[in-house]
């Protein structure tokens, strides 16, 4: 660990000297180039804390590695859910998105929060009652079918890789800004930190770290708001409410006195458009489709669902969703404040303002360079904790569901743990390679993660819990339909087929409103057509799982 810190510092010192080229931004919204000593020290100190926590939560059993020994309470698990969820993209990107997309962008906020209600009501407690390791295992056991298990594990891995890759955009921005190093070096640096502590500690370390990371990231995110809102003419008591007045003012053309205090009529027309419902493109169908897709995608994300295995009992599982959602809400109630204040000071900015709207906040608030380091640690924490959660989920899909269950059912616990660590490293390498050569359409591919989860995992999981006749044939048919349609829509989007564009009839990133209900129907119809094909033995196994899911009295099996 010490060696690593020395290594990190050397790396930083070496690269800091060369990385001075940074384009100057807008007047208020600019970030200073070059290596920043105080912030860098603070950031390295927090990284050392993560590694230390990882080291002291060392584990020796597979259940410790995968599901944190099931000893995590409701606040802890809630904070871990929130930290898992709040990626670098949420931390830095949502405010920028709201800055650019105005009212329509709020669809992301309700999509990403409303999904937790579905997860809580339909799946959380049942998943805990089942109580094993992974989502693929849950689906595989419930449908008594290795194909279902493998499809689910594959989807888990696809989601883990695409989603984790995207995190490095945010991480690269932060490291580049603090250390003055370029994107490639930032990726290697952050990946090194993440991988080191994950390999040392597994899920227990990740979960403990995620609690620390949540505290750092949410406080770093919230503190500047109080100062900024005062600078914008508020009282500085509750920025999340006070920005409403500024927003109303914006829609009537009032902006910061520093830039003239009033908008020209053309500027006013543009700003008003953005904050009116349909002014930034899209109509009610697109809004609903987006919200629905993000919701069931959220409820179907394996690395979020697996959180319910890490708690003591289903009561804690339920309450940790409540707390998780509240912790997530704190971030999403505050993101629009940054967006609206951005408009207040910079009504006509484009992506160059949106990209650094959070990172430049402490400078505008005059919080000093120590705080910059703290905020950067928060952003880095957000990115790293999400990557860590994804890698654990992805590696467990490979090691637990592919290796230990299907290919080598006789492997020992030690072997499984070893394979788990190997695959964590392998996945991390894949992510690094993809992140170093990011596909041009990285944002689109990430959006696909939600569509895939919503179209494949969510219908299969809901029917697994709530429809006893649903069987493996139905599940396979439904999942293949969901996966195919998602991939089709995505390729269509990338090839610029009009129907799959953001304003088409089946927008690729919002495809679930149409595809997922059909996946439900296909699963149900095929299951009913194939009821006779299920063997007596398979029926008995499924029946046992179903009874467990719903706390029904055990099956009295007469041999």
């Amino acid at each position, binding site marked *: 660990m010490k060696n690593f810190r020395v290594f990190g510092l050397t790396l930083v010192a070496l690269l800091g000297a060369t990385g001075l080229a940074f384009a100057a931004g807008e007047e208020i919204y600019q970030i200073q180039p070059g290596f920043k000593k105080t912030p860098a020290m603070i950031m390295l100190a927090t990284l050392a804390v993560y590694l230390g926590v990882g080291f002291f939560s060392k584990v020796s059993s597979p259940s410790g590695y995968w599901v944190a020994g099931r000893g995590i309470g409701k606040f802890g698990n809630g904070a871990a859910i929130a930290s898992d969820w709040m990626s670098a993209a949420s931390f830095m990107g949502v405010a920028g998105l709201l800055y650019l997309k105005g009212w329509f962008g709020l669809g992301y906020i309700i999509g990403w929060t409303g999904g937790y209600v579905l997860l809580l009501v339909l799946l959380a407690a049942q998943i805990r009652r089942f109580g094993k390791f992974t989502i693929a295992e849950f689906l595989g056991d419930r449908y008594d079918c290795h194909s279902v298990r493998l499809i689910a594990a594959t989807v888990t891995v696809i989601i883990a890789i695409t989603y984790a890759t995207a995190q490095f955009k945010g991480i690269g921005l932060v490291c580049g800004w603090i250390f003055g190093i370029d994107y490639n070096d930032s990726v290697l640096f952050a990946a090194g930190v993440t991988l080191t502590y994950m390999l040392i500690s597994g899920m227990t370390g990740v979960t403990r770290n995620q609690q620390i990371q949540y505290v750092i990231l949410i406080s770093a995110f919230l503190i500047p708001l109080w100062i900024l809102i005062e600078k914008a003419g508020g009282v500085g008591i509750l920025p999340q409410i006070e920005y409403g007045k500024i927003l109303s003012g914006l829609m009537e053309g009032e902006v910061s006195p520093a830039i003239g205090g009033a908008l020209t009529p053309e500027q006013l027309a543009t700003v008003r458009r953005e904050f009116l419902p349909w002014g930034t493109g899209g109509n009610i169908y697109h809004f609903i489709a987006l919200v629905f897709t993000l919701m069931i995608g959220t409820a179907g994300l394996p690395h979020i669902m697996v959180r319910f295995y890490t708690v003591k009992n289903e009561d804690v599982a339920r309450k940790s969703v409540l707390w998780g959602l509240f912790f997530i809400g704190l971030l999403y109630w505050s993101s629009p404040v940054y967006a609206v204040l951005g408009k207040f000071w910079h009504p006509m900015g484009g992506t160059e303002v949106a990209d650094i709207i959070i990172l430049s906040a402490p400078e505008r608030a005059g919080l000093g360079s120590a705080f910059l380091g703290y905020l950067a640690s928060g952003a880095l924490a957000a990115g790293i904790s999400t990557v860590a959660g994804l890698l654990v989920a992805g590696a467990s899909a490979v090691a637990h569901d592919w290796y230990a269950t299907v290919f080598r059912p006789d492997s020992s616990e030690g072997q499984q743990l070893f394979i788990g660590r190997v695959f964590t490293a392998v996945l991390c390498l894949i992510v690094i390679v993809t992140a170093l050569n990011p596909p041009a359409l990285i944002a689109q591919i990430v959006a696909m993660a939600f569509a895939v989860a919503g179209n494949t995992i969510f219908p299969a999981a809901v029917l697994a819990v709530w429809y006893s006749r649903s069987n493996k044939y139905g599940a396979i048919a439904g999942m293949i339909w969901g996966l195919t349609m998602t991939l089709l829509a995505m390729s269509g989007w990338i090839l610029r087929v009009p129907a799959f564009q953001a304003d088409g009839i089946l927008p690729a990133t919002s495809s679930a409103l149409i595809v997922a209900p059909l996946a439900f129907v296909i699963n149900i119809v095929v299951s009913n057509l194939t009821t006779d094909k299920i063997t007596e033995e398979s029926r008995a196994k499924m029946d046992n799982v179903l009874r467990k899911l719903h706390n029904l009295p055990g099956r009295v099996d*007469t041999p």
Partner: protein
Amino acid sequence: MSPPKEVQFSFFRPATESMRREVRTASTVLLFWFFLSFGIPVAIWLAGLGDPSGLGESFLTRARFLGFPLHYWLIAQGCTIGYVLLCKLYCLLCDRRFRHASGPAGRPGA
């Protein structure tokens, strides 16, 4: 004796009394969820249909609530606060259900 029959149920046809209560709790919460997620956007859409410019301006965008344009507040905070409260409601309903089911001594799921 014939072998035991598999349990048969769906969300709409729960198998036991305890499942029936669980489903009722879930449907109550889902009803509110549906209203928040889709009812409010549709209301904003319907109200804005009269706007000839197609931007959806209406009494909801002109009204002010806590200083906010109402249509913005409803989505940015109304819905999300609503979701947190719904989760709280669900937890309360479950607690009550378990207290009924297991009596004063029982601890759910422990």
